[in-house]
């Protein structure tokens, strides 16, 4: 028995224009995509919506569009679809690697990456990879479309830049034409599924240029600008790694909760940073661990 106590009306529009009509008419509503967060919250009675708008019939939101310039992920694209896509492993490996760490197969078959960023929970898996890919959130209202860069999307724990009357229709990011090597490392309490206690995404491009993002180590995912500046243009060696590890605590603000203490999180962030830097370097050369290999 998995009872939802609250009562609500349920709508399943087939097009975005109907969605906008409903949004105007209903005023109080929540969107339902994969549902792996929302249904849980309904059962815990954390949310009590009057109306649920199920967007899963809207075909234009289901597409993965990969061109030479851009990747566009519709807001209904699931983590499984990202993992199974034939080309994303090569062009956007961090999206695939992060997706592989989300929950389990049956959840990945429903949960969407856009749903993940809309939840904006601090431990989300999509945040750090999207930050290093400098993704953009494509938002539509009945009147207009706007683009929100991912670093402006997360305003705080469970808070995003989405306004009333808006819906996220896609994520998009530039297709990096140059060589890249990257790694997504996630700290869990064991090998089985877990919510991240810490995560780091490293993208290494040619000329020793790095993009580094931490997740679950601050209220929102962040780009580690100090670390990126320190790494830029330098050959990776043990001395550089030690210097970067020392910078880690200047970038993040880990907390203590029932999952981990801030001391352990800080310690692990450094360990993960080191292993991620080494693995990204290897992957840039076409070597390194197979996608999805746990580094910690």
């Amino acid at each position, binding site marked *: *028995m998995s*009872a939802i*106590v609250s009562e609500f009306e349920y709508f399943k529009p087939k097009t975005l224009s109907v969605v906008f009509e409903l949004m105007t008419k209903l005023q109080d509503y929540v969107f339902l995509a994969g549902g792996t967060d929302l249904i849980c919250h309904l059962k815990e009675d954390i949310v009590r919506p009057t109306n649920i708008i199920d967007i899963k019939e809207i075909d234009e939101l289901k597409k993965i569009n990969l061109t030479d310039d851009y990747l566009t992920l519709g807001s209904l694209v699931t983590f499984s679809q990202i993992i199974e896509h034939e080309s994303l492993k090569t062009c956007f490996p961090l999206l695939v690697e992060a997706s592989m760490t989300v929950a389990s197969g049956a959840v990945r078959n429903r949960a969407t990456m856009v749903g993940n960023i809309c939840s904006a929970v601090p431990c989300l898996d999509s945040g750090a990879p999207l930050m290093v890919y400098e993704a953009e959130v494509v938002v539509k209202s009945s009147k207009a479309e706007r683009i929100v860069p991912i670093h402006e999307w997360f305003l705080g724990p469970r808070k995003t830049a989405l306004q009333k009357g808006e819906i996220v229709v896609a994520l998009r990011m530039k297709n990096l034409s140059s060589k890249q090597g990257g790694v997504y490392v996630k700290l869990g309490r*064991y*090998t089985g599924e*877990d919510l991240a206690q810490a995560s780091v995404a490293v993208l290494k491009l040619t000329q020793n240029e790095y993009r580094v993002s931490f997740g679950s180590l601050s209220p929102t995912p962040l780009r580690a600008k100090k670390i990126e500046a320190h790494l830029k243009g330098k050959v990776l060696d043990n001395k550089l790694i030690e210097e970067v590890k020392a910078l880690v605590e200047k970038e993040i603000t880990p907390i203590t909760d029932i999952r*981990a203490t801030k001391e*352990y999180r800080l310690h692990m962030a450094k*360990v993960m940073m080191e292993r991620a830097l080494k693995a990204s370097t290897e992957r840039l050369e076409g070597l390194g661990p197979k996608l999805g290999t746990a580094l*910690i």
Partner: protein
Amino acid sequence: MNDKNNKELKYVGKNVVRKDGKEKVTGAAIYIDDIDFGPNTLYAAIVESPHAYAKINSIDATEAEKIPGVVKVVMGKQFPYRFGLYMHDRYIFAQDRVRFVGEQVAAVIARDPRIAKRAAKLVKVDYTVLKPILDVKEALGVGSENNAEAGIPKELVHPELKDYQHVPWFFPKDNTNIAHFRKIRNGDLEAGFKDADFVFEDNYVVPRYAHCAIEIHGAVGKLDHSGRLTVWTSSQSPHTQRHLFTQALAPLGFTHNDIRVISPYVGGGFGGKAGVSMEILAAALATTVPGHPVKVLWSREQEFYNTYQRQGVHAKIKVGVKKDGTITALEQLLYWDAGAYVEYGANVVNAAGLSATGPYHIPNVKIDSVCVYTNLPPGGPYRGFGYSEFLFGLESHMDEIAKKLGMDAVEFRLKNAVREGDKLAYGAKMNPNGLIEAISKVREEIKWDEIDKADPSRPHIAKGKGFALFWKAPAMPPNSSSSCFLKFNEDASVNLLISAQEIGQGYHTVMAQIAAEILQIPPEKIRSELPDTDRNPYEWQTVASHITWSCGNAVKNAAIDAREQIFDVVERALGKKREALYLEDECVKSTEEVAWSVPLKNFIIDGFMMKDGTWRGGPIIGRGTFMPEFASALSDPETGVGGKPNVHYTVGAAAVTIEVDRETGKIKIPKAVLAVDCGKALNPDLVRGQITGGLLQGIATVLYEDMRFNELGKLMNANFTDYKIPTALDVPEEIVPIIIETAQPDGPFGARGVGEHTMIPVAPMIGNAVKNALCVRVKSMPITAEKIVMALQEKNKEENKEKI
């Protein structure tokens, strides 16, 4: 009687396919929540206390009662009755005060579970919040450090403790929070320590754990209009439940005859579905709405905080040893965080106290095993029943001692291991056992004497090996019994009516194998029927790893009884010489007449027709019971000596190799080996199943499961998201199960139980491996990756300090 010797067994000792298999792999097996009770069914939601300790001032149900679909709101005061298995300290609903977060205070019965849940939230309860006692030391009071009885607590969780009825082998202490104090005093402790060359003392802490059976607790009660109360429960103990329901509801006029308990398949018990926890609510609430089935189904959250938990324990261990490794004395102070009600949990404390020497020969022993009330969920039976809890400290300590003596850890254990006939700390003698064989087989399989070389390509990985012994005896009243009716059908198939429960261990299959062996009917034609107290005869409980032994004996006796009746009627009706008769291939045969046989199905119901047209015989019905008549729980309260409270011990040894990442603290397990002496493996596959299952459950407690209460006594991680039980990704790479068979003389075909034992050595074995790999001893569970990293950092700090 022709008892074949074990070498010629046809069905016992074979990997017979499980009888419940087809139902389970097709999803057809019925569990409590699968039974349809019809549109008349009502659903209950419980109003629970948000406080760990508080006085209940008033309960206002007016808002709740207004909700359409609410049939009744039941106030706690309607059921002011106490009950309990070993001690009557537990309430159906909290009365004047609540004693743990989540304790039931009232209930809403409604036509739909969602309505019940919504209405329950609208019941307003006014509390005066009291300061909860969340810590054993606080519960014992100032002055209790080295002597629990000397403490003076500030507050009593049960001020009326002295009025509580309890079994004669419990010793509560008035005006304290000590519900039971088990003392063992054997030999001369002081002399023992004087005699030692070294004395080693240390403290170990084991927290609470949750069973986490995948099926949650559930019960449905119906009081029909004839006045009969039927309760369907997911239960390991239908007869004991009936007994406790009767006890609790006796003030309403119920007797045993009025109550019937039926139990379908149980989706995992591990002790959590033994006794009575939430099931009493279905029984009680049913009496308020006669004619309606009332379903009470727990959520996963409630499963965590309002069913039995495995108790936490603080252990202080002091051991004296001679230079050559001989143990001369042991002192163990075990202070148990037993929770708000200890009607079952107090026996865990008792069982642990009796056996906290571990499987060692120790001449001078002092054990204080103290059951302490706290404002936390009630502690109760959990696989291992106190042994996992004390063995963590004991086997960690033994390992430390060996290292400090410069002795090999296995040699140290061999030197001190208990042998058959040794006198145990409470006076009884040790049964035949294969402990030495288990130790040497495990030692060989894990290649104990070889040191795994470090891998230069992985410099941050440290390798280690750990070893542990274990033992456990069934902890049960001395008159725990099993019984069996064995009936035939016209085709000579058999129904075994037994009230032990199939909780996953495969017991239905094994009982069928036993009957099959005696009757020489294939197990495929022998059914074991799920318990129904109206139809199946008495079984105490499916706990304590004693069903193979006890119910197995009852089934064997019933089969022998049936066999004797078969021979009787063949002799009487056909004039055959009884001594020559035997059973084979579902027929009766005779050693004197090789060509003659009569199929059982010809007469097993109908009997034999004589020449004159009259008949002899009729339906053959076997009857068997088993109750050990040598067990006794009488003992001296000050020494524990006397009686034979433990029928026998199952023993074994286990070892593990681990790889620890020094930087992350994470542990991988390349190999685990566990040898258990089951006396006789009636179904070897099922024994191996207990080994792999128990091993992983043990690994989970030492590496992953981590119960967190906040400062107000609320459980913060009452879900699988944050209380982590292992997935298929967390299993050791290689598990080697080893079956040892040193016969249990009074066991069916020599068998004794193994269900709990396979979990018991795992935590200390891994703790010992961590010490071997990293030179760091973690003395509290769980040994998480984080703890290891922090311990290594601490160690580095100490070493750097020393260098300066």
